[in-house]
């Protein structure tokens, strides 16, 4: 086998390194309890981070969509003024922002899934630590010392694998949260630098908002000019 056996090798190496450290099942149990507590704390912390990241992303989606709809208004205005080039630029930018918003929404969904997975993993780990504690006693009561040693060590390996797996799930969730945070920060930065709102600059057309303002001014100038002309003419 290729990828599948490779994954097994890597995880098993970690698990066996853990198990070899324990000679006594009491150590296994103690370590497992301790590790479980640590993991639960980390899971909680990660969940809090996920909640914060989610709120921030939800706000960003709203802001991206608002900006997109403002761009549509600008495109309409540009069309009315006969500036199709500007309208196209605004609509292009709008499509870009909508793409960003959709991307953020997809990430939000992924984050929610991650959170659910962590909750399940935490519950499973708790159940397994409990099962190990119970089984250890049963095995000791029921089997000879040598036999008990073997059975307990099998159970300890199973438990260690579970610990390693929850550790992995947590690592992956943290990585995803971190990615999301980085993405949120990048979008914030774009907004703060004005790039997100104003960066509609296809070659030569300049900024849509400014260009439209200039058009409005020139319209005003034309109107005033016409009025003045009439005044002068009637005098």
């Amino acid at each position, binding site marked *: 086998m*290729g*990828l*599948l056996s490779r994954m*097994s090798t890597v995880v*098993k190496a970690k698990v066996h390194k853990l198990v070899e450290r324990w000679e006594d099942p009491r150590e296994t149990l103690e370590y497992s309890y301790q590790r479980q507590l640590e993991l639960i704390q980390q899971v909680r912390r990660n969940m809090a981070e996920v909640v914060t990241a989610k709120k921030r992303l939800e706000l960003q989606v709203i802001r991206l969509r608002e900006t997109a709809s403002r761009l549509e208004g600008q495109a309409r205005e540009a069309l009315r003024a006969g500036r199709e080039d500007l309208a196209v630029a605004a609509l292009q930018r709008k499509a870009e922002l909508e793409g960003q918003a959709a991307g953020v929404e997809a990430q939000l969904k992924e984050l929610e899934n991650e959170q659910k997975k962590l909750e399940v993993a935490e*519950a*499973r780990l708790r159940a*397994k630590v409990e099962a190990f504690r119970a089984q250890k006693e049963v095995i000791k009561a029921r089997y000879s010392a040598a036999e008990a040693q073997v059975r307990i060590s099998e*159970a300890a390996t*199973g438990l260690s694998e579970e610990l390693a797996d929850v550790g992995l799930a947590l690592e992956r969730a943290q990585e995803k949260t971190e990615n999301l945070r980085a993405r949120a920060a990048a979008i914030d930065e774009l907004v703060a630098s004005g790039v997100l709102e104003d960066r509609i600059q296809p070659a030569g057309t300049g900024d849509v908002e400014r260009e439209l303002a200039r058009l409005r001014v020139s319209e005003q100038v034309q109107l005033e000019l016409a009025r003045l002309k009439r005044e002068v003419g009637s005098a």
Partner: protein
Amino acid sequence: MIVRIATEGQYELGGEALARLDEADNALLEAVEAGDEEAFRRELGRVLELVRQLGRRLGDGELRESDLILPPPDMTLAEARQLLSGYPRDLLDR
């Protein structure tokens, strides 16, 4: 045989499933070698679905070592490459 899907849980599978897993594993390796992300996601999904459907999910009270540990469902092509890097060439080439 006990198979774990990393970050998901363990399943007990009969021996006949092993041949099918082996087949799927070849397809996975091909996708990695071709650098085809879409094929990789599809094949990985197929392998995991196979295990979920053919296997019996181990209960929370069962403590058993896995014979095989499969990648997490959200593993990316880049992660698979990293996992395989440094793997002896002859094994990679099958």
